[in-house]
């Protein structure tokens, strides 16, 4: 167990060491780059401030993710079952990913006013695409022989989907979730830049404007940890949900 996490720890230390080195090298001014030491100090000094803002952002991220997964999975399944719809809807989905947020923001504001609404919307917007693409590709990749078999057993389309296609595509879905979980955090940050009264994104932005670099880095560290935690959570969920995968190799 410990051995498993040793490399991580080592590399992390190495990374922090490098960071410290570069920071204290002096070639980089400390307005652009705060050293780990300064960052840790900021984490300690502003702890309560950071904590409150973290809660806000975390909440936005979680809500956004849940919505994204629901919508993304739903979209994938529907598009998989209704082929013409897939042909039709895909371009729009892609469009949704190509539109710069500053353009969307005002429209979202129109729709949701300020407050948590637009942030969640943006998180969802960023997250649902990986989920959709991966799940859809997974559903399309099902071993055709299996579908034949189910058809010969007179399974309904629903049964086919539920008993064969979805279980088969589950690993792909989790790949998508991994990506979604990781980028959701950045989504919340952008959301908050489109106007927010608190949250880590805002904190970081203000920090940048007010030249409070250590606080900025403290915020970034928390954001990173948040992304990491979500990623790990998804991976654990996968292990629980896809027990049959790679059973052998481990033995």
């Amino acid at each position, binding site marked *: 167990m410990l051995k498993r996490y040793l490399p991580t720890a080592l590399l992390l230390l190495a990374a922090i060491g490098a960071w410290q080195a570069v920071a204290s090298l002096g070639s980089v001014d400390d307005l*652009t780059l705060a050293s780990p030491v300064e960052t840790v100090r900021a984490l300690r000094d502003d702890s309560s401030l950071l904590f409150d803002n973290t809660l806000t952002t975390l909440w936005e991220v979680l809500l956004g993710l849940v919505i994204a997964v629901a919508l993304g999975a739903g979209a994938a399944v529907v598009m998989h079952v209704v082929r013409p719809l897939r042909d039709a809807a895909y371009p729009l989905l892609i469009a949704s990913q190509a539109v710069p947020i500053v353009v969307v923001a*005002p429209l979202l504001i129109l729709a949701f006013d300020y407050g948590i609404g637009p942030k969640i919307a943006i998180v969802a917007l960023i997250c649902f695409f990986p989920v959709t693409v991966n799940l859809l590709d997974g559903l399309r990749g099902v071993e055709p022989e299996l579908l034949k078999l189910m058809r010969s057993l007179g399974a309904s389309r629903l049964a086919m989907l539920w008993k064969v296609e979805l279980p088969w595509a589950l690993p792909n879905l989790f790949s998508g979730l991994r990506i979604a979980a990781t980028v959701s955090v950045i989504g919340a940050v952008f959301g908050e830049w489109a106007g*927010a009264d608190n949250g880590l994104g805002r904190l970081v932005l203000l920090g940048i404007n007010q030249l409070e670099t250590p606080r900025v880095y403290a915020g970034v560290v928390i954001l990173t940890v948040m992304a990491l935690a979500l990623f790990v959570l998804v991976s654990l969920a996968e292990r629980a949900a896809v027990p049959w995968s790679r059973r052998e190799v481990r033995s």
Partner: protein
Amino acid sequence: GERKERTGPNGTERLQLMLDFFPNADHTPIYAAQAGGHFKDLGLDVQVRAPADPAAPLRQAAAGRVDLALSYEPEVIRARDKGVDVVAVGALVQQPLTSIISLPDAGIRTPKDLRGKKVGTAGIDYQSAFLQAILQKAGVDPAGVMERNVGFDLNPALLTKKVDATLGSFWNYEGIDLRLKKRNPQVIRVDKAGVPTYDELVFVASSKTVKEKGDAIRGFLGAIARGVRDLRANPKKGLDALLAANRDLDPRLQSEVLKVTLPLYAPPAGRPFGWQEPTEWSAFGKFMRDSGLIQKGAGGAFTNDLLPGGGL
């Protein structure tokens, strides 16, 4: 960010200037100077570039990664207060441009009308301080006014009617723009409503750069002064230079902006171009300290020593 070679073509000295934002009419003098060949005449080769984010110019100048940057007096004072080693070496725009802008329906003609209204700001601390000062002077209970951080898109917030007014847009840019777009905006300039006057746009450099490249900077400011002079004689030439360098600018808007901005480049009578009035700076520094934006004063935040001398 390795050190660039310090000299440009045929022995001219290279200066890198970072704007405060994407190029716009406020920057016309710089382009006019380029077009008039004034930089070359003074042995300068000036490179102009846009910033990564509003805070970048100060940082880059402080780090010496650019020689000069355009920033805002409040930002400079705060940077000094934070111990960042930058100095304002000359003012480009001699007045505040920041203003409260609203649409007619909101019926905000004077600060008094702000009572019970929603005001959108970019979440910049000193602009919040402006609002407080304005409300205080107008005798409006701050509790009755809701300030809301709408990020950098002040206009969308205004146009989507999510706020009654915005504080942070420039009356000479967003103000004009909205007017041209037939939204006949109500504009209240902050300096007319209780905020001490200050220089909106100032050239800044690190004191190290000031030491090393003092003459070059002086030459630069001189060239800018000539650029402004050219603009007065013939705004078109400078404007064309600006538009040529940035094809995505809206000519009509920019020329309108330039028209109202041109007078703002002029120093007080009998002062050289780029003059930064010490009394104003200390007054504004005091305002910032009183508002709890800084701990120390504005001392040494600017220097007039590098001004070319001679007014316009």
